[in-house]
């Protein structure tokens, strides 16, 4: 069952990159995120699965649709870059080789050295403050960027 979910996820991921039509690509992307969320639910990680479904399938997909509605759906076809495909495949092979060489060590370390869970429970408020700071700085940067672009436009008009 695991493999079925992951194969469907991978197929939707490929479809979201390969579809020429942008709306079909966005729908494939949303379905990929939905399948991943259902897979997390299947793994008994209910909160993570629901978070994935609500945030990605709901929020991010709608956000991208909104962006596409403003930008427009036409886009130039990308060239097939062989070096990119070869590089990605090489990295996949490297990752799999490294993982299979060290999987026994990883399982052994996971069973013997249980890291403390206190990091996120004790410093929860600190993490929340850091996240809020990062979020607000990103939003500030975005607004600033739009303000930087705006005067140039007015000068031209």
């Amino acid at each position, binding site marked *: 069952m695991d493999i079925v979910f992951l194969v469907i996820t991978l197929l939707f991921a490929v479809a979201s990159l390969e579809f020429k039509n942008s709306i079909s690509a966005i729908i494939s992307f949303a379905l990929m995120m939905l399948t991943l969320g259902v897979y997390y639910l299947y793994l008994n990680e209910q909160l993570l699965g629901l*978070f994935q479904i609500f945030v990605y399938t709901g929020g991010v997909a709608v956000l*991208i649709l909104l962006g596409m509605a403003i930008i427009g759906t036409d886009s130039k076809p990308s060239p097939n870059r062989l070096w990119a495909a070869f590089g990605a495949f090489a990295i996949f092979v490297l990752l799999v080789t490294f993982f299979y060489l060290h999987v026994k060590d990883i399982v052994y370390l996971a069973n013997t050295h249980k890291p403390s869970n206190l990091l996120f429970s004790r410093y929860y408020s600190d993490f929340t403050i850091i996240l809020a700071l990062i979020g607000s700085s990103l939003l500030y940067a975005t607004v600033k960027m739009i303000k930087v672009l705006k005067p140039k436009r007015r000068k031209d008009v």
Partner: protein
Amino acid sequence: MFEIDMMFAFALFSLGLYGVSSRKDFLRIFFSLEILINSVILMLALSAHFLGLAQNIPLAYLIMVLATLEAATGTLIFVGANKFTKATNPDQLDRESYDE
């Protein structure tokens, strides 16, 4: 089972890398970035489930929140850039030609 599932996560990661390096329009690059981030979240969830590393789940939430912020900011930047330069891919974002 853990090994096979992790292979799929690696495949997703490689697919994201391929998309980032080969696609030219905003939308596909954005999708590729999200696929990259989600492959990492998948690895964390798999290690939490199969190896009992429960502390990986809060880390996955953290990454997910940051990815959501990145999605919101990225969309805003794309829309903002498109509004002023009419560009649909990053190669068209040439401020010099725009200023003329």
